[in-house]
């Protein structure tokens, strides 16, 4: 994957497949700790401890159409390469949290990339899922919550082009106020 935001799209797809109705995405940079954290939490069906133990193995997947699952193994390999790692917390019936960490200034760390496009893709394609996106750079934080947007637009669907355009512009502005993470 060329961008960490593509990994986020990929991991969030796992949450969608797990039947999540709420997905919380965090991108957090700490210059003091030289740390970039990416976290995807969901309230999907969760995984058993046995499955969590095997999920970094590329030859483990729940899908039936192919025998390899590369999403978590690729994220894990990239995080390991960048002086970080991937932590997985999950319980059956209680959802899953995947957290990947990277040294912020590591030369091998892929750029965060087009995170706004990742969020737009998720929101448009899954209008019934409640998404929150939390973006922090040191002390500054921006949070987007699709439930707040839905409360404002009432019966207008969140997929309406004018609403989507607003979300794109709003996120781009707010992220640059909090601080872009390259």
């Amino acid at each position, binding site marked *: 994957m060329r961008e960490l935001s593509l990994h986020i*799209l990929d991991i969030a797809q796992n949450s969608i497949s797990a039947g999540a109705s709420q997905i919380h995405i965090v991108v957090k940079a700490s210059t003091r700790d030289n740390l970039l954290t990416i976290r995807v939490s969901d309230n999907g069906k969760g995984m058993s401890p046995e499955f969590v133990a095997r999920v970094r193995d590329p030859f483990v997947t729940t899908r039936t159409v192919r025998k390899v699952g590369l999403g978590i193994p690729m994220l894990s390999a990239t995080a390991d390469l960048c002086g970080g790692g991937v932590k997985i917390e999950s319980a059956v019936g209680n959802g899953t949290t995947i957290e990947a960490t990277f040294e912020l200034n590591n030369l091998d760390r892929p750029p965060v990339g087009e995170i706004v496009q990742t969020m737009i893709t998720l929101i448009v394609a899954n209008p019934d899922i409640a998404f929150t996106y939390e973006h922090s750079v040191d002390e500054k934080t921006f949070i987007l919550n699709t439930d707040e947007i839905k409360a404002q637009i009432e019966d207008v669907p969140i997929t309406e082009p004018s609403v989507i355009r607003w979300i794109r512009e709003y996120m781009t502005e707010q992220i640059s106020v909090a601080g872009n993470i390259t």
Partner: protein
Amino acid sequence: MKTLEDLKRIREQAQKAMQVRESDHSAKICVAMGTCGIASGARETMAAILDELEKRGITDVAVTQSGCKGLCEQEPTVDVCKSDQPTVTYGYVTPEKARQIIAQHIVNVNIAGEWVVATDKK
């Protein structure tokens, strides 16, 4: 700077537009977003689809995503399903092809045959 307050105005305008619009979706476009699809550029394909629909003012097409369906080597793949017609799966859908598929299949109801990798009788 944009604020949540803007959404009220957007809502009022959208509600007016919705009154004169057919409510049912006439077609569904589904972009495969498994690891294979995403790594092959599915997000950019999706962005092109949304942009093209907006530019053409097409509002009765639902755009969704799915996981991997086993056509990894032909990603990005896009399913187009017009109501009461079989689902057509297009392969190697670059953003440029996605725009042409909207012009041909959605607007002109003419399947872009050379890019079809599978069809499904429903």
